[in-house]
């Protein structure tokens, strides 16, 4: 047997180490469609519990929207279940190209190419368009998928301090000898909920002849007045060279992603991006659902407006209760607890109160920056938010952190 006891022991030890470090991730089984109200089996084998979900990326509440579900059914009926091919062999249907055009129009770019996920888009784009004579300069808090994509590319890479435009400018000056410079940002930073200063980034890019890349996965569909994304919020629609985004969050929440931007760059991805060339085309059922999601967004801004109202209401409620929040104006609202164990205890107690929210700590966030990350949805009604606020306040009182400063909480619980 090739999988010997020795081999098994190596993995068992590694898993034990993960357990002992308190980093073991356990899935909670949801027995209902994704929504504000869900039924959860946790721990495995436990009775189902009805809880309010405040940790999904279901920003617009489209994950189980009846029109999206109906469109997906129709897609299944008219275009079948799977493509059994990559795009360039025999995996491209009319609706793949239709979605690419819809995304291009929506984001205000020149062209778009679909990927099986935004993780794949980020994994493929840099290698496809850059070489060793180029430099990638990324914000230090960009998403892990971008980090992986940069690792796969042989261009040189450097980082700039999160959101620090002076530092970015220094780096751009330092790398003027390179063939191409790419400034790489998230639109909305998923752990902190703050947004990139894309207007300032564009100004520097124009001054120092650099391309601008933004991953707008936590923005597409709801950030900006009409929900185009961070570039709309910052007034730079049409000036993004590369946008990557996902359909797995606000835009229906299933899966799939894309690279959208300058037509030559998109064409280079079509020719060279390995996750595009060597992975199956997106399933027709998902394409059909995403097309419907965009149709809903074009019809009105009702959902993104409701999401914005919910986020303001939630932020105000937590602030008035005396919690420390990360500053920002997005539907990602991190409740700061600083201590890792406290974040886990808090999350567990919230679950006991019927509220599903997860605690994050190092290495997912910086040491001493543990938090409960809450995410709002247009699917939340006021009664959901009021019940969740009530639970947060109850648990906050239990741990005596309401109205306390960061220093006071750290003094009580340590880092």
């Amino acid at each position, binding site marked *: 047997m090739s999988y010997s006891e020795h081999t098994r022991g190596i993995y068992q030890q590694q898993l034990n180490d993960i357990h002992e470090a308190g980093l073991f991730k356990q899935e909670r089984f949801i027995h209902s469609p994704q929504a504000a109200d869900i039924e959860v089996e946790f721990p495995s084998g436990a009775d189902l519990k009805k809880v309010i979900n405040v940790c999904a990326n279901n920003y617009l509440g489209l994950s189980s929207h009846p029109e999206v579900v109906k469109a997906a059914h129709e897609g299944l009926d008219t275009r079948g279940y799977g493509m059994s091919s990559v795009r360039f062999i025999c995996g491209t249907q009319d609706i793949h190209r239709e979605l690419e055009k819809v995304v291009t129009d929506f984001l205000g770019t020149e062209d778009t190419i679909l990927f099986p996920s935004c993780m794949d888009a980020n994994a493929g784009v840099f290698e496809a368009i850059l070489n060793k004579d180029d430099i990638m300069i*990324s914000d*230090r808090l960009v998403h892990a998928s971008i*980090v992986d994509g*940069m690792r796969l590319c042989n261009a*040189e*890479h*450097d*980082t700039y*301090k999160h959101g620090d435009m002076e530092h970015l400018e220094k780096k751009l000056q330092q790398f003027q000898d390179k063939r191409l410079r790419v400034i790489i940002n998230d639109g909305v930073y998923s752990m902190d909920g703050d947004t990139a200063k894309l207007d300032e980034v564009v100004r520097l890019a124009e001054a120092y002849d650099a391309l601008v890349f933004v991953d707008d996965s936590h923005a597409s569909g709801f950030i900006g007045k009409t929900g185009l994304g961070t570039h709309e919020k910052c007034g730079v629609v049409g000036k993004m060279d590369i946008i990557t985004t996902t359909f797995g969050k606000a835009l229906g929440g299933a899966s799939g992603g894309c690279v959208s931007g300058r037509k030559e760059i998109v064409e280079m991805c079509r020719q060279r991006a390995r996750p595009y060339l060597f992975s199956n085309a997106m399933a027709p059922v998902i394409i059909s659902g995403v097309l419907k999601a965009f149709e809903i967004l074009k019809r009105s801004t009702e959902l993104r407006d409701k999401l914005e109202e919910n986020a303001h209401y939630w932020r105000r409620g937590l602030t008035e209760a005396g919690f420390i929040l990360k500053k920002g104006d997005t539907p990602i609202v991190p409740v700061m607890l600083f201590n890792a164990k406290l974040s886990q205890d808090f999350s567990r107690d919230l679950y006991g109160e019927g509220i599903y929210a997860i605690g994050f700590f*190092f*290495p997912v966030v*910086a*040491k*001493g920056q543990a938090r409960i990350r809450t995410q709002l949805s247009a699917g939340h009604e006021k009664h959901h938010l009021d019940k969740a606020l009530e639970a947060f306040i109850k648990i906050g009182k239990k741990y005596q952190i309401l109205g306390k400063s960061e220093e006071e909480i750290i003094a009580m619980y340590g880092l």
Partner: protein
Amino acid sequence: MDDVKDVILKYVIEEYGDEDHVITNETPLISGGLVDSFSMVSLKRFLEVKYKISIPDEDASPEAFDSVNKIADLVKRFIS
């Protein structure tokens, strides 16, 4: 050769320091989560330009770059 440490410490503080993190010669940079591996590349580039040396990739390990003291030891090996 102590000025090597001073130069490196100054660079590291400018690049990675903020009000939340006081960096000293002993501060664990990579294992402590202050410096990621990408930024290590720019640090290596800075040292090579500053001291006119070439540090082979196999010597530029995360362990060798984990504190100002360790980086200074590494640099001194290549300064003739």
